[in-house]
C-alpha cells in the first residue's frame, strides 16, 4: 500500500492551482481530502507525476450565504458542512445525506468538492446536489469561471463537466428554507457505500405536498433526479397510500448496477420502497 513516487505542490490560491494544472497537464492530479484519491494511488491504480494539494487555499474553504443561495467552498469537509447551521437551515437534505457518509474520520477529511468531482455513482453527495438544483462553479485557465447546473455536471461514471486544467471551486445551492428532508441510505454494514440511496426534500402545505425533489444514488452511472415522481407528488397527501402510488414508477428507466450487494432488479425494487420512505419522512409523516 505504498503509492508510486510523485512530486507534490501546494498552491495557496486558485490562480496558482490552475496555473500548476496547466504546467503539468495530464501528469497532474488534484488532491482534496484524499479519501478517494489516496486509496487509488496506494493500490497503484493511478500514478500521477505531480499531486496538487488544494488544502492550503483559503478561498476554497467554508460555507457562506449569498442572497437566496448557499455557497459551499469545494474544499469544505463533510464535518464542516455537518456543523454548519446555514446548511441545516437552508439545505437540510445535504446535511442528512452527508451524515451517512462513511465514518467520522473520513468525514473529517473528505470534501464536498472532492466527492462531486470524483463522481462515484454510489457516493452520497450527488443525489442531494441534484435534487436541490445545485450549481457548480468551475475555474479554468486565465481566471475564467463558468457555472454548470448539477443536471449537466454529472456526465458518466467518474466523469463530470470539470475538464482538463479546471478546478471545481464552489457549490451554489438555492435555499430550501423550511423544506423537510430525508436521505434514505440502504447498506449492509454501516461504513458501506450506498447500495441504493434516495434523497428527498419536500415543502409541505397544510398536510399535503406542495413541492418535492427526489434524487437517486447508485441507480445508474450518475446520480439521477426523479422528475416524474416529483411531479406526481405535488398536491398529494403525505400518506403511505398516496405516496406509494406516486413513487411507484421511480425506478423506471434507471440502469442500476448488479453486484454482490444486489442485482439490478433488486435495486429497482429497493428504490421504490426507499423513495416512499424518504418522501414520507421528509414530509414528516
Amino acid at each position, binding site marked *: 500500500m505504498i503509492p508510486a*513516487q510523485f512530486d507534490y505542490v501546494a498552491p495557496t490560491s486558485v490562480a496558482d492551482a490552475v496555473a500548476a494544472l496547466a504546467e503539468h497537464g495530464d501528469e497532474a492530479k488534484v488532491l482534496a481530502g484524499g479519501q478517494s484519491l489516496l486509496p487509488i494511488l496506494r493500490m497503484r491504480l493511478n500514478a500521477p507525476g505531480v499531486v496538487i494539494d488544494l488544502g492550503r487555499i483559503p478561498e476554497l474553504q467554508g460555507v457562506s450565504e449569498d442572497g437566496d443561495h448557499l455557497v459551499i467552498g469545494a474544499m469544505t469537509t463533510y464535518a464542516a458542512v455537518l456543523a454548519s447551521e446555514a446548511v441545516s437551515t437552508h439545505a437540510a437534505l445535504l446535511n442528512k445525506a452527508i451524515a451517512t457518509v462513511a465514518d467520522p474520520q473520513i468525514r473529517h477529511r473528505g470534501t464536498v468538492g472532492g466527492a462531486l468531482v470524483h463522481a462515484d455513482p454510489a457516493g452520497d453527495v450527488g443525489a442531494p446536489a441534484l435534487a436541490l438544483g445545485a450549481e457548480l462553479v468551475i475555474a479554468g485557465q486565465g481566471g475564467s469561471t463558468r457555472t454548470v447546473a448539477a443536471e449537466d455536471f454529472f456526465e458518466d461514471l467518474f466523469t463530470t463537466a470539470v475538464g482538463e486544467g479546471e478546478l471545481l471551486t464552489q457549490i451554489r445551492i438555492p435555499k430550501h428554507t423550511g423544506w423537510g428532508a430525508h436521505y434514505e441510505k440502504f447498506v449492509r454494514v454501516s461504513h458501506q457505500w450506498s447500495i441504493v440511496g434516495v434523497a428527498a426534500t419536500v415543502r409541505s402545505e397544510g398536510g399535503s405536498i406542495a413541492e418535492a425533489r427526489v434524487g437517486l444514488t447508485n441507480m445508474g452511472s450518475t446520480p439521477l433526479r426523479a422528475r416524474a415522481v416529483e411531479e406526481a407528488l405535488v398536491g398529494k397527501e403525505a400518506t403511505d397510500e398516496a405516496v406509494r402510488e406516486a413513487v411507484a414508477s421511480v425506478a423506471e428507466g434507471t440502469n442500476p448496477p448488479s453486484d454482490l450487494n444486489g442485482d439490478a432488479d433488486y435495486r429497482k425494487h429497493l428504490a421504490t420502497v426507499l423513495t416512499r420512505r424518504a418522501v414520507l419522512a421528509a414530509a414528516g409523516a
Partner: protein
Amino acid sequence: MTITEDRASETPAAEIGKARTRKEDQRLITGRTRWTDNIQLPGMLHLAMVRSPFAHATISAISVDEAKGAPGVIAVFTGEDLKDIQGVNITAWPISADQKTPDHLPVAVSHVAHAGEIVAVVAARSSAEARDAAELVDVDYDELPAVLDLKEAAKDEVLAHPDLGTNKSAFWQLDSAGQGSGGDVDEAIAKARDGGIVIEREYRQQRLIPAFMEPRSTVVDPTGEQVTMWSATQVPHVLRFCIAATTGLPESKIRVIAPDVGGGFGGKLQTTPEEFATLAVARKLGKPCKFTETRSETMVSGHHGRDQWQKLTLAAEKDGTVTGLKVELMADLGAYAAIVGGGVPVLGAWMFNSIYKFGAYQFNTTNYYTNKTWVDAYRGAGRPEATYAIERLMDELAVEVGVDPLEIREKNWIKHDEFPFTTVAGMTYDSGNYEAATAKAKELFGYDELRAEQKQRRESNDPVQLGLGVSTFTEMCGLAPSRILGALSYGAGGWESASIRMLATGTVEVVTGTSPHGQGHETAWSQIVADRLGVPFENVEVLHGDTQIAPKGMDSYGSRSLVVGGEAVLRAADKVIEKAKPIAAHLLEASVDDVEFKAGTFGVKGTDKGVTISEVALATWTGHNLPDGIEPTIDADATFDPDNFSFPHGTHLCAMEVDTETGATKMRKYVCVDDIGTIINPLIVEGQVHGGLVQGIAQALWEGAEYDDQGTLVTGSFVDYTLPTSADTISFITDHTTSPSTYNTLGTKGVGEAGTIASTPAVVNAIVDAVRHLGVNDIVMPCTPERVWKAIQAGSPVNTEGERDAAPHFDEGAPNQDPASGASEGSGQ
C-alpha cells in the same frame, strides 16, 4: 534471612475469578511495543512479493533484469533461484494414507495454482523501492483452465493440479456402526422413511477470510549462531519445526520469535510462503530482511476458512426423537493442503451429533482442490460448520413435528444426570447441564414475551416480522490428547509445557509454550500462579513466544491455551511447592511431614512458625543453608498431555427483525448462557464471548469471499468484504452456568471459540423463523437483504445470481441443484 513468625492469618483474596484488567493491554493498545513490523535491524532489507494474477498457469519465463536495475534494489529471486533452500509448506495432517497432496513451494517454480501465489521476491533498501521494482518483474504465464467451484471440482473435468490427475484430495469417514459407538445409520434412515421423519437438507458454509488486525509480517536475521525469525504467528514452535523439517537448517540453528501478535483467529496458525521466502532470501543475501504484507495481500494469500457443502440426512421418530444422522461433506481446500488443511472438516466429525443422544451416526468428508486461496482453520475450525448443520436441522425437525425448537432439543439432549456420557460419535462428555443453561437463557431473553410479539406481528401482517433463533451448542476444546492425534495421523502431539522460575528477589517467571496473540494469557496465567503459589499477581511475569525462552510448546489455537497450557502451568507450580517443601522444613527445623503449604507460606502444623515461598526461593538461591544432598533449585517444569478434550456448551437465543419489504435484517436481542467450566478472569471471558459472537454473526449476515469466473477474488478489500464494526452490532446479554471440567485440575473448558461456533445458526434460525410462514425454510449465508427478500418473493430458497443455494437435496429440480455462474463484479470505490 527471616523466618516469619506471624503467619498471615488471612488468605489473600483469590485471584482466580477476579475481573482483572489485562496487564498487557497498555502496550498493546498504544502500539508502543514489539509488533513484528516495528522491528528494525541494522542493514535490514525490505522485500516485496511478485504474485500471480492468474488462478492457474504455468510460468514460461521470468525476466528480472529491469527490476534488478531499479533504484535501491539489491536482488531479485525467482523460485528457481531459491529452489534448494526455500523448503516447502507442508501439511501436518494427511487424513488418509492415500491423500493426494500437491507440493506447495513458497515461491512457485513452474506452476501457479491460485491468484496471489508468489512467483518472485524483490529485496531492496526500502519497502517502497521493493514495491516499485516488483512491478518491473516481467512474468510470462501460459494460462490454464481453472477450477473454481467445489462441485465442479468434484467432476474432475478441469484439474487444479494436472499432475495429480484428480482434484480429490482424500476421503474420511466416521461410522458409528463401524467403530462400535452406535448403530447403522442407513438402517435408521430407512426405518424413518417408513412412518418416521426424514429431514434432508444441503447447507452451504461459505468461504470466509480471517481479518486479524495486524497484517502478517516476518523479519529474519541470518547473522549470529542461530538464524532468528520474528513473525506475526500463532505457532512459533510449529514454525520452527517446519523450517527444520524442510529447509535443511538444523532445528538447533533456528530461533523463532512471535513477538506481540495482533490477532489470529486461526489465520496465523499457518506456516506461510512469505515466512519461508523471507528466510530463504535472508540466507541467500546474509542480511536481515523484512516482509510485511498489505491487507490486499492478506486477502489473497493468507488462508481462508470454512467453504463446505453439507449434505445432511436426519432420521427421527414421529414424535421427534432423533434416531440417526448422516453427514456427507464436500470441503474445498483451495489450491493446497494447508497445515491443518484436510483435517479441518474432520475436526467437525465428533460435533455434528452435538448435545444430542441418538443411535446411529455417520460422518463423511471428501476434500477437493480448487484454484483458489488455500483454506485452513478459522475460529472454530470444523466445529462451527458442524454446529450450524445440526442446529439448523433441529429447527427443521421442530417444524416437522410442530413443536417449539427448544422443546425438540430438550427431547433429544443429554440430561444433566447422564454425564459422563459417551456419544454416538464415540466422545465421552464429562460434564454439562443443558437444562440449566437453557432455563437461564430463556429467562434473560424473555422468550415467551418475544414469541407472543412474533405471533402478534404475524397476525397483523406487520411488514417487519420477528424471528427467534436457538442454538444449543457444544464444542470440543483443549486440543488435544496426543494419542488421539496420533490415531488420526496428525503430525504432532497435543501436550503443552510450562516452566516456573522462582527468582531470588521474590518475583516469578512463568514460561508457557502457548503463544498468545491478544487473548490475555499474561494476565490469566499470572492469576493462576499467584493463587497457587500465594505470591502477588504483580510479581508474576509470563514469558512466551520465543523458542529460546520457551523451547517447548504447541502454541495457541483450538481453545487449548488455558485448558492444556494453563494446566501445565498449574502443575509446574505444584512441583515448585513440592521442591520447596523439604527446604522449608529444613529452614523451619521441622519434619517435612509436618509442613503444610497455604497462601504462599510453608507452616508447621500446630505452630505459628512459617516461611514464605519467596523466602525459600532466596534461601535456595544463596544455597547457604540447604538440606544435605538437595539440588539448589526449586524451579520446575511440567508438560501436560490431556486425557480427553473438554466440552463447553451453551444456549444462545437470538431475536431478529426482518423487513419483508427490503429483506433487511436487524438484530433485536441476543442472549447467551455459556458453560465454560471454571472462569479464571470474567473480563477476559466477556471479551472472548463478545468478539466471538460478532465473528459468528458476521458469517450469518455479512462476510463471504467471492470469486469471479477468472478466479480473481472480488471481495479483495474491505470495501467488498463487508466486515462488521461496532456500529453494526448490539449489546449482547451474556451469562454463565458452571459445571467444571473433570479432565483438568482447574475445571476449565475453553472459551476462545464458543461465541463464533454458537452464534451463526442462532442468527440464521432466527431469520428463517421470521419468514417461515412466508414459505421460506432456508437462506444461504451470508443472509444479505437481497437473498432474504428473494427468498420471501419465491416463497422458497432461491438462486440469486452468483449463488448456489441450499434446499432439500433429493428434490428433483430444486434450484440449488444447478449452480449458477460466478459472482459479478463488486461495486467500485
